[in-house]
């Protein structure tokens, strides 16, 4: 299939991009990595009047760390997340998750901001943003907004972004030395979207975990925090002992969808399997 005709602009500054968005309104789509948008265009699932290509906005391409905060420009590509030593050191959850997105050719183009703005419920990075309690920064000609990840994902491909806003960066704070992470996803083939996946972020406390956040993806219309399961494991000196309770809690936390890839019951079962697996792997270095 070929994309329907559209106009194309490539602004050189964020100010220019915001001006175009405010003028063109709903007819404009922002083009970042294009690894979800271009298929949608080719399949004519999306038919915008104009693509606003933001790849020329160098101001959106940075990885900046200070004290316990990591700031990532929206145009940080998956390959950069996976390879950055700064990210591997500060927030290895992102390195691990990015390395499991699709295939190398997709990772060369796909961007952090694009993945969050696309809000695919089975995607890796939205779940990471939720697990990390990240702040998503958006700009419009009216100014800048800071949106917590938990308030950002509203539903299937739906976010809190307005049509006149550009997602410019992501901020992750509280990256102290006691932070610990886990990540796993299940897919039938390497590189597919997840049937189900889990991003875990916590702090070490003795042999247990505190401030535990469990973000599942591929279970609902958006990434979901399993708060009851996390509470069952929070602060337990040996969290594996509380696993039965935590797995039972998942039934209240998650209300999985059935689709071609897995039934709701299978997803709920796999959520428990992943939780057990990821937790064991995360706790292993603390033993």
């Amino acid at each position: 299939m070929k994309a329907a005709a559209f106009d194309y602009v490539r602004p050189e500054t964020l100010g220019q991009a915001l001006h175009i968005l405010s003028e063109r309104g709903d007819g404009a789509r922002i083009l970042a990595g294009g690894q979800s948008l271009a298929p949608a265009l080719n399949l004519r699932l999306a038919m915008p009047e104009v693509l606003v290509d933001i790849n020329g906005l160098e101001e959106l391409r940075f990885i900046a760390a200070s004290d316990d905060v990591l700031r990532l420009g929206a145009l940080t590509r998956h390959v950069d997340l996976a390879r950055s030593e700064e990210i591997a050191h500060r927030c290895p959850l992102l390195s691990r998750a990015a390395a499991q997105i699709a295939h190398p050719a997709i990772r060369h183009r796909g961007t952090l901001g694009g993945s969050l703005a696309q809000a695919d419920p089975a995607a890796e990075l939205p779940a990471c943003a939720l697990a990390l309690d990240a702040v998503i920064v958006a700009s419009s000609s009216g100014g800048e907004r800071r949106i917590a990840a938990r308030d950002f994902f509203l539903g299937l491909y739906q976010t809190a972004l307005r049509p006149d806003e550009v997602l410019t960066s992501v901020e992750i704070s509280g990256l102290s030395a006691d932070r610990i992470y886990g990540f796993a996803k299940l897919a039938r083939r390497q590189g597919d979207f997840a049937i189900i996946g889990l991003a875990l972020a916590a702090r070490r406390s003795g042999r247990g975990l505190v401030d535990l956040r469990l973000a599942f993806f591929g279970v609902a219309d958006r990434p979901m925090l399993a708060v009851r399961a996390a509470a069952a494991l929070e602060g337990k000196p040996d969290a594996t002992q509380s696993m039965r309770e935590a797995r039972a809690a998942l039934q209240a936390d998650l209300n999985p969808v059935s689709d071609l890839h897995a039934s709701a019951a299978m997803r709920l079962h796999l959520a428990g399997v992943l939780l057990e697996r990821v937790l064991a792997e995360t706790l292993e270095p603390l033993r």
Partner: protein
Amino acid sequence: MKKRVRMIVNGDPVEAEVAPRQHLADFLRETLGLTGTHIGCEHGICGACSVRLDGAVIRGCLIFAVQADGARVETIEGVSDSGEIADLQAAFAARNALQCGYCTPGMLLTAQELLMQSAAPDREAIREYLSGNYCRCTGYQAIIDAVEATAKARREAKQ
């Protein structure tokens, strides 16, 4: 409305007017006649349209030609003519790692990228790196054999 683009394709400067909706793979094939880049699914799944953009292998169907303005593009023709992958191509032929040949340009470019990053990838790493390139003749074992053999030969040549 058409846009003027300039890029370097296989070392040669190219200038053309393109419709924004034309993806890079179609531009290479239809405007430049470089038909080694194949069109498979046109939504980023199959990898037949793999080309290098500024040195990295990407999906030619998931980027519009207009976006490649100012970029350096390399196709299978360029990488083949330069001799860069002559040994990999010979290994593919020797091991019958191509049947219909439709996926082969993408397989070669992706495999070469892996071999440039990693001198001794194991079979699992080769499978993982090639996971986004589909062979519908399902000749994967021979393809992995050929990539593994090329890696070994290149290591031995260096010693």
